[in-house]
């Protein structure tokens, strides 16, 4: 997958941001390292409406980082910067989070970590049949509807 919209600098920043949004878990690397960055870049190519909020959020993160680049901040300070941006512009930031989740949770390896062994079709799921005996109490209720 090649970049479409984001510059190398923006891609690098987004990777770091995504790693804070969805950190590593068990054997799974954090979202950015896992490849969510390029997936989001592809979303930006396909859906131009996403560009403004995501680019706005990334710029705001750079600005809030101050003289020290986000990449050079320690983990606690990175989270602090992200919280500040979230509070200042919740709309743009929530879109950044949403697209990160979109890229992360559509990956088969992430789904497998949740016990999902494939998409819903064609297999579906086999569930127990309805047991009418469970209705015994309700069947004995008086009629609840008004005739008219």
């Amino acid at each position, binding site marked *: 997958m090649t970049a479409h919209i984001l510059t190398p600098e923006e891609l690098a920043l987004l990777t770091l941001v995504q790693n804070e949004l*969805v950190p590593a878990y068990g054997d799974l690397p954090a979202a950015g390292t896992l490849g969510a960055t390029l997936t989001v870049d592809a979303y930006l190519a396909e859906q131009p409406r996403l560009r403004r909020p995501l680019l706005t959020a990334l710029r705001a993160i750079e600005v809030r980082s101050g003289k020290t680049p986000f990449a050079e901040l320690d983990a606690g300070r990175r989270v602090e910067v992200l919280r500040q941006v979230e509070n200042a512009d919740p709309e743009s930031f929530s879109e950044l989070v949403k697209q990160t989740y979109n890229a992360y949770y559509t990956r088969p390896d992430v789904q497998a970590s949740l016990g999902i062994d494939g998409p819903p079709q064609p297999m579906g799921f086999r569930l127990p049949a309805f047991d009418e005996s469970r209705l015994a109490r309700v069947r004995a209720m008086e009629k609840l509807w008004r*005739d008219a």
Partner: protein
Amino acid sequence: MAAPELDSDVLIVGSGASGAAAAWSLSRRGLRVTCLEQGRWVDPSDYAHSRPDYELARQTSFAKDPNVRSWAEDYPINNSGTPIHPLMVNAVGGSTVHWSGHFPRMRPSDFRVKTLDGVADDWPFTYWDLEPYYDLNDSMVGVSGLAGDPGNPPRSPRQTPPLAFDAGCEAYLRGLEKLGWHWWPCDNALISEPFGENRSPCNCCGPCDIGCPIGAMSSAHVTYWPKALAQGVQLITHARVEQITVDRAGRATGALYYDDQGVRRSHTAGVVVMAANGVGTPRLLLNSTSARFPNGLANNSGVVGAYLMFHPVAFVSGVFEEVVNGQRGPIGGLMNCQEFYETDLARGFVRGFELQLSRSVGPLSVANGGILGHPVPWGSEHHEALRSRYAHTMTTSVMLEDLPEPENRVTLDPELTDAHGIPAPRVEYRAGENTQRMLEFSIARARELFEAAGAVEILVDPLVQESGWHLMGTCRMGDDPERSVINGWGQAHECPNLFVIDGSTFTTSAAVNPTSTIQAVALRCADWLGRNYRAVAA
């Protein structure tokens, strides 16, 4: 000189739940029927269920909101004046292409709210008048469920048995049995066993709301349309209607529409039937101005577009310690609780509500808040929070009866248009005081249920923005031409060869999903029109 031959006997605008049923019914009688549909057939390959990114379809290609989905065949809606956004699908089969398939019937009292409770208006017919058409419709589409519910009048055996009963049902049942409340397995427009042609029974894959790739969902494009086409109905897709045309006497003569090449065409018919939903139908009538109808066709009363009703919906979700696998099985088709359906003034409001005890969604939608309205937090807590909700959550939809109020309405936007330059609808709506009191009470009852069921966390979205599936009341039925647009047969008071048969017709909204009633009403109107066509078209 002989009158020029008409293109069709009956022209239907819209191919969704009502248009499909009417096309089938009218063509059975040998009438020449044409249906204009602005959308297309949804291709089986369009469905996302076999892809790992299937949940993205909720945000993109199968988004509920046409303003978000933005298919070429969608039209924009100005929804800046409503907290509930109108939702619809513009395709063959209409909004039944992706829906939850809840298929309850209204109760007898729902048709007599003025007589029984002193509010709104009575319908011009009773439940019992409609009952044969409910039965006919069920037999055509295929319904899963179980007769014998003490919450509703007796009904004919369902075509297929109730859907599966799993861990999430057990969780709900703990609460229901402790509280002693009513519940019953839902009637669903979703087959659990073989029924009909080229359809497979539900295999419980889960996300019905992004369509059904196996034909288990009883959507109009897999139920009525194959039969209607076999009977000779002409279905023209990518046909965007601009206006209904009238002659000097004020009778409908047909429609002007844009075809798939953008060419503006005319289609003439003896009768025009509007089936474009509770927003689309008033939009087109309001856009059909003439010397005889300067305020829009059949709108000298000013009632077209007024009395818009939604079903205001709250989502209440319970998170359980145990795995309930709410993402497995039909998302909506589980159980109903109608303990609070009929009026009890001690509650502080008239009319009532139902609790739709439903399932949940996959991990992406859980992470984004999806059905819950509460995104999972990012950062160090993310994974534990996600895992506490995913596969551990069940969601109840609290569905309220919405009373008709003239200020809630569909008008034409003065600036916004669709791709063909046709004015877009503007929707203005606010929930009335009765609704707000009922909403508060009903959310408290859903909380009570989840507490009794042992939920460890309860999440509430008190008024769901993306819940405007049910578009009702904007060309309402009634006997009084000053307070209604059509009579009990769907016939416009002011234009006797114009009929309306979709959700616009509803005099009141009841507190249940409307599609089975929409189709039953459409069949009843079409039956009358079919028997009286010559007199109506003369």
